[in-house]
């Protein structure tokens, strides 16, 4: 069976994409093909499915689709991923944000919640807890359930604490968790100002006005034209002088948006809406 899962050709990939779109309404047509192919082949390998078995499972097993969705929308993340990014937020963005009456933040593609909770911790430690609110969205319902619970394995927390320590915040990461056995649960204080909900960047539009949007390491999975469509949603969701943060290896290539989003920090990919 292993040989048959070895290669998935482009025609088969397109067929799967159409199937998923027709059955479940999720459109992966403009996803990065290299990554999508690798993810699907990984599922086939884990499940020991060949192409036909995979199709069969997608058609007949709704529960399998959830698993499939979770696999192909990469959900690997960290708290305070790229500490230098959070340092830049602290020094270059917060002084601006502090001047707004309310700081509404959208964490788009929040996965299991590590990023929105990192932002909530940052806000709290810098003294903006009472005027900030974080909307965290993801395409994936299952992952959002995990995010809402805010329970992380202690082993992961150790790595997150190393990131945190490089940011230069006044506290310690574990101040924000209740630790029991091998799990750490986010304090309810942090959850109070955080709302998790389903939002599909590909099909859903703007839903509020934000002072800052973080969408890091999501664009890497989108082809250029889809990136631009989503960028449009972000642009329309930002207040004037609001900030957009992308992943450090992502970039805005469209001239139209380059004019309207000023680079605040090129290494960390932080932009400010100016036009």
């Amino acid at each position, binding site marked *: 069976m292993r040989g048959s899962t070895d290669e998935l050709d*482009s025609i088969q990939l397109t067929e799967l994409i159409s199937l998923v779109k027709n059955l479940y309404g999720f459109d992966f047509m403009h996803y990065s093909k*290299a*990554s999508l192919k*690798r993810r699907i082949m990984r599922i086939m390998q884990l499940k020991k499915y060949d192409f036909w078995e995979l199709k069969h499972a997608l058609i007949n097993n709704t529960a399998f689709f959830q698993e499939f969705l979770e696999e192909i929308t990469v959900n690997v993340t960290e708290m305070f991923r790229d500490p230098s990014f959070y340092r830049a937020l602290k020094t270059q963005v917060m002084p601006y944000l502090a001047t707004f009456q309310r700081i509404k933040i959208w964490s788009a593609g929040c996965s299991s919640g590590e990023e929105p909770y990192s932002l909530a911790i940052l806000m709290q430690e810098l003294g903006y807890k009472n005027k900030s609110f974080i909307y965290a969205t993801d395409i994936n319902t299952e992952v959002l359930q995990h995010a809402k619970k805010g329970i992380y394995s202690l082993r992961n927390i150790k790595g997150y604490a190393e990131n945190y320590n490089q940011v230069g915040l006044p506290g310690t990461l574990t101040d924000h968790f209740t630790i029991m056995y091998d799990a750490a649960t986010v304090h309810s204080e942090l959850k109070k100002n955080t709302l998790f909900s389903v939002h599909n960047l590909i099909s859903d539009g703007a839903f509020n006005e934000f002072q800052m949007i973080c969408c890091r390491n999501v664009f890497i999975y989108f082809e250029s034209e889809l990136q631009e469509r989503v960028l449009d949603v972000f642009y329309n969701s930002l207040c004037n002088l609001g900030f957009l943060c992308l992943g450090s*290896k992502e970039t805005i290539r469209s001239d139209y948006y380059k004019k309207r989003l000023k680079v605040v920090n090129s290494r960390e990919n932080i932009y400010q809406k100016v036009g």
Partner: protein
Amino acid sequence: MDAILRRLNKAEVIFIGGSAGSFSPVFNIVRSLPHDFKQTLVIIIHRGKNNFSDIENLFGNNCRISVSEITDKDKIAAGKVYIAPANYHTLIEKNKTFALDVSEPVWFSKPSIDVTFDSAARTYGAKCAAILFSGANQDGAEGLLKLRGSGALTIVQSPDDAEITTMPQAAIDINAGEFVLKANQILNLMTGNSQT
């Protein structure tokens, strides 16, 4: 060596993978490349996730050609050296652009050499070459085997010449390297010299 050199020169892209002990042989190659280097070099070296751009600066300040860390969707251009960023996997799209990915580490590594080699086998196949240097785990071996299977020229640093033998040995064990050479022989090839 003449035959290897001819094939190496025909490769559109040369992929280099390495881990512990690979820095200096790779550095020697990059700083020896002429300013009119016609091919593309893509380097995947394991490194810690939070040490930013040290390698790029070090390479960039000592080289005659453009060295840059990969940004998502960069077009793969001739005459350039690209370095895989830490904490991402580097994949290659059919239209010859880079696609980054943050999924699980492979062999505890991100970037994983296997992931890039595997992707290169699919997009470039016989039109590329790959070299695997010293390292302390077996990342890269499977990917190199795929590349060899797709017709690419594959070279492994000779374990007795490598600072840490695990990585090249793993590749040799599964017969992934068509040629096993010392670092200075590889350097000579890369600078267009077939004398050893």
